[in-house]
């Protein structure tokens, strides 16, 4: 418990440092002005969400191969945390888009594939709530999670493969793309607290799922007795 509190305090300090860097260290963009500073929050949220979904995918594959409940617990924890980061991404994006594009939302490839990704993982969690039997629930959701992950490369590649309203990639975007070196350093630094927050949330959620597993076990013993 004490370890958890120390971890949470470190994450809060890192988040504060990232906000400071985003507001005071990164230079103001000559075209967009101050509003572009949202990218220091929006991009790390989006990337961290994708990392969490990758963890979910790896855990789902591991569950299908090994049938160990711990992989199921990790899978659901990563899916839920990924969904939280994707929600933050989907909320902060339109706040940036309205002053820059003049609209909150448009159905371009990046935005649509991200919205679909969000819906897929909501479905993953809903599917789990519909199946009572733990082994069946774990297997069905693992298979669905593997299917849902197909959208992650589509989200990543959408701004590279198709012309979109969404800005072109600033990292790994090929020739002609990129950011001012200070902006890039701040952006990478802002990703660190998000990853730390992802680990913290995933740990808490995993403990919850492990406890739920214990509860199911005790309940079954009580029923058998």
């Amino acid at each position, binding site marked *: 418990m004490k370890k958890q509190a120390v971890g949470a305090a470190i994450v809060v300090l890192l988040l504060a440092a990232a906000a400071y860097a985003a507001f005071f260290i990164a230079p103001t963009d000559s075209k967009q002005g*101050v509003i572009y500073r*949202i990218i220091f929050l929006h991009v790390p949220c989006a990337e961290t969400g994708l990392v969490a979904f990758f963890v979910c995918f790896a855990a789902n594959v591991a569950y299908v191969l090994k049938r160990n409940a711990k992989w199921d617990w990790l899978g659901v924890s990563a899916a839920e945390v990924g969904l939280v980061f994707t929600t*933050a991404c989907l*909320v902060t994006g339109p706040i940036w888009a309205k002053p820059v594009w003049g609209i909150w939302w448009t159905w371009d490839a990046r935005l649509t594939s991200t919205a679909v990704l969000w819906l897929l993982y909501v479905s993953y969690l809903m599917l789990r709530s519909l199946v009572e039997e733990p082994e069946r629930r774990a297997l069905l959701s693992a298979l669905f999670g593997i299917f849902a992950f197909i959208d992650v490369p589509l989200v990543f590649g959408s701004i590279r493969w198709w012309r979109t309203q969404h800005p072109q990639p600033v990292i790994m975007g090929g020739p002609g793309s990129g950011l001012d070196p200070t902006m890039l350093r701040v952006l990478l630094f802002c990703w660190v607290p998000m990853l730390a927050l992802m680990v913290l949330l995933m740990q*808490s*959620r995993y403990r919850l799922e492990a*406890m739920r597993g214990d*509860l199911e076990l005790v309940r079954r013993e*009580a029923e058998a007795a």
Partner: protein
Amino acid sequence: MKNLNSVFAAYLVAWAIFFVYYVTVARRAAALREDLERLKESVTRPVDASAAANRGK
């Protein structure tokens, strides 16, 4: 400093989402812990009662 309010709003909303989720997980864990304790007690109680009865014989 045009649009500074929008930047603050984005930060506030995102942090609120993370905070609410963290609190939700903590509350769910607390509720589950209580359930688990209650269930463990109900499972062990009949055993204790029969053990006491055996000791009495």
